[in-house]
């Protein structure tokens, strides 16, 4: 007795995120911690909830354990529902054997039966890799108003970055004329955000067609969207303004973190009308001791600070000992920084213990020249006292 849903979301959370190095050794990219409290996937899941989309299939296949434990039955996002809610979808076997997900389109194709249970009119396809706040219900209204068959959310990026993305050429009223995946010489700087709204019955036919094409890589950007364009379908671009980030590298992860610390951050986490939900670690309030100092920083619950924290982000349960200075850094949950430690421009992994008087990261800042690298200390490390640790240039 499953209820019909107007719009179902499929969230692609399979990303391996190879360029994120040791951060993704045990994590899928959507599970990477961000902003002192969140994992990257929290943004898209919260977008769904805040947009009134209450049926979300999360497609995982790579290292899903942390992601599965994080999402659980969907309580933080109010997605623990009797009808709909969040479903974790891994590949499965049928008569004739099982298959892993190939491209993005194939991942949806393999879950046609899941989607059909809800008999939706519209299918929203999103990726769990991106950080942004978007009202998908506005996207849906736009899609309906234009009588669109597929609508792609787009954003303008600096020209020099454009070739990393899918590039759109757009005509009258936002109609899409051309779509090129990662062209060496982009014709526009309007790029696809990987957010697609489809008329489900139409998409379903294209997925089946694409699946029959042995030469296809079964990818939305490379195969399905171009095929729909070739066949003259009504595709529109939905212009998005605001913060949007594909955190693909350690540098961009660090930079996006620092972006949160400016006076008026572009990504406002304090907006009560569009909360970002996450699992609550259930820690007590943070404690700043006499003599502690915290400036230009985001600090999560359960932290205990005796030293100084400047321009940094501390996840829950971090301890910073007396006389220590943490600067321009991101400290992940439950890390313990001993006494007299200096941390600068570093990312310290979960549960890592840094011994007294260590110096972590570039300590030569402000001397001009090439910007310093980011020092990454793996999770669960145990760093003895009096060590100096710097990143190796990548």
């Amino acid at each position, binding site marked *: 007795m499953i209820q019909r849903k107007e719009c179902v979301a499929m969230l692609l959370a399979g990303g391996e995120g190879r360029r994120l190095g040791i951060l993704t050794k045990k994590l899928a990219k959507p599970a990477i911690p961000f902003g002192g409290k969140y994992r990257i996937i929290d943004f898209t899941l919260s977008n769904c909830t805040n947009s009134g989309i209450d049926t979300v299939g999360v497609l995982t296949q790579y290292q899903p354990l942390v992601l599965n434990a994080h999402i659980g039955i969907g*309580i933080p996002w109010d997605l623990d529902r009797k009808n709909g809610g969040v479903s974790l979808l891994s590949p499965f076997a049928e008569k004739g054997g099982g298959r892993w997900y190939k491209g993005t389109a194939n991942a949806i194709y393999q879950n046609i039966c899941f989607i059909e249970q809800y008999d939706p009119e519209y299918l929203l396809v999103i990726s769990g890799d991106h950080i942004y706040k978007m009202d998908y219900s506005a996207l849906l209204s736009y899609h309906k108003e234009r009588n669109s068959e597929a609508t792609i959310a787009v954003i303008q990026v600096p020209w020099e970055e454009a070739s990393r993305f899918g590039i759109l050429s757009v005509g009258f009223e936002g109609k899409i004329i051309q779509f090129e995946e990662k062209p060496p010489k982009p014709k526009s700087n309007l790029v696809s955000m990987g957010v697609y709204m489809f008329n489900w019955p139409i998409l379903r036919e294209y997925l089946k067609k694409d699946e029959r094409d042995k030469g296809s890589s079964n990818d939305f950007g490379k195969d399905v969207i171009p095929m729909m364009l070739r066949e003259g379908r009504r595709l529109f671009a939905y212009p998005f303004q605001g913060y949007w980030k594909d955190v693909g590298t350690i540098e961009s992860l660090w930079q996006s973190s620092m972006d949160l610390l400016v006076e008026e951050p572009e990504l406002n986490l304090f907006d009560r009308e569009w909360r970002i939900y996450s699992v609550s670690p259930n820690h007590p*309030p943070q404690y700043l001791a006499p003599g502690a100092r915290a400036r230009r920083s985001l600090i999560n619950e359960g932290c*205990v600070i005796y030293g100084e924290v400047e321009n940094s982000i501390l996840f829950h349960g971090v301890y910073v000992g007396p006389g220590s200075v943490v600067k321009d850094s991101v400290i992940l949950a439950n890390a313990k920084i001993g006494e007299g430690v200096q941390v600068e421009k570093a990312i310290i992994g979960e549960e890592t213990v840094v011994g007294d008087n260590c110096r972590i990261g570039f300590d030569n800042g402000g001397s001009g020249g090439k910007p310093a690298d980011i020092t990454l200390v793996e999770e669960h490390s145990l760093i003895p006292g009096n060590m100096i640790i710097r990143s190796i240039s990548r």
Partner: protein
Amino acid sequence: MKHVMGVINLSEKDGCYDLQELTRQRCIASIPFGGRYRIIDFVLSNMVNSGINNVGIFTLNKYRSLLDHLGSGKVWDLHRKKDGLFILPPMEPCAAEGPRGDMGYLYEHIDYLRNSSQKTVVYAGGNMIFNTDFREAVSFHREMQADITVLYKDMGMGGEDLSRYKKVALDDDARVVAMEAEPGQMKCSRIFMDIIIVGKPLLLDLITDCFKGEGRRMCSLVNDGIVPNLSSLKIFGFPHRGYLAAIDSLSCYYRHSMGLLQPEVSRELFFNPGFIYTKSNDEPPARYGEDALVQNSLVANGCHIEGEVQNSILFRGVRVHRGATVKDSIVMQKCLIEEGASLDTVILDKEACISRGRELKGSRENPMVVGKRAKM
């Protein structure tokens, strides 16, 4: 512990306590405490952490904010089909007749107790703040083959004024030999924690016996169920060795809150032996501005601090503007302290707003209280 149920009775003495403004619209159990909790979170989390899956909360008055806080019980994993969280308000609160007193409210919902499958009851009041695993006390209760086990705390001599608490005296075998029906008579440092462990059949008997006679309306579990039976029943005492705060007046609320600024105290209360659960408000991490100076303070998520905060407790979503100072104060959820305002030994209830340049000052014995949503 699947044979143990929890009962939290908020009905006994609400009237006798003096929390002033803080209880104008809420019961004591619902008062915010410790930067993000409410008083009931402690006893409720203790029960859940002890493996108790069936908790009945007997409410009397002003429990709307409590209902809101408890919600479906999901936070405590008590949103169950079978067992889970039960709210038991008085049947007909305004009827002239009908049983009253803490036992009276149990009597009205005796079916709930009877129909529950568990055989042992952990029975607690709603104004004690502590962290314990009841499994120890329950094992003790079983080993001693006790009829009733009362939990007490030895407060030591010479510290706090203990005259307001009911005290218990034990013999060498931990058997309770005396217990105060009215506080202030015995000279002794062991205070009753308003918690007992009792077999359900005995509890049911005590309740029904109480209302057998004609015209009996008012019955107290301690005074009518325990004190008269000290010799006829096997009543033992079990000590709680950890932190305890009994909230029964504004000055004691203030004092115990400030006590949390000692990290070893708050560590024990919030983590040992179990976590304290509370409704999550999904606030972002606290944000410290360029000129923020926060010291010896507890700060909850969602705060945005640009001014100065010393020896204070800030609940979730408090905004302290540049040039404002907060000292020795408790600032509840979503309060706004505007530029240049100054607080000294003040308790701000939720969503209060202190305007630009305003200065407020109270004293330790008599902290100033600003009511919910007040604008000053």
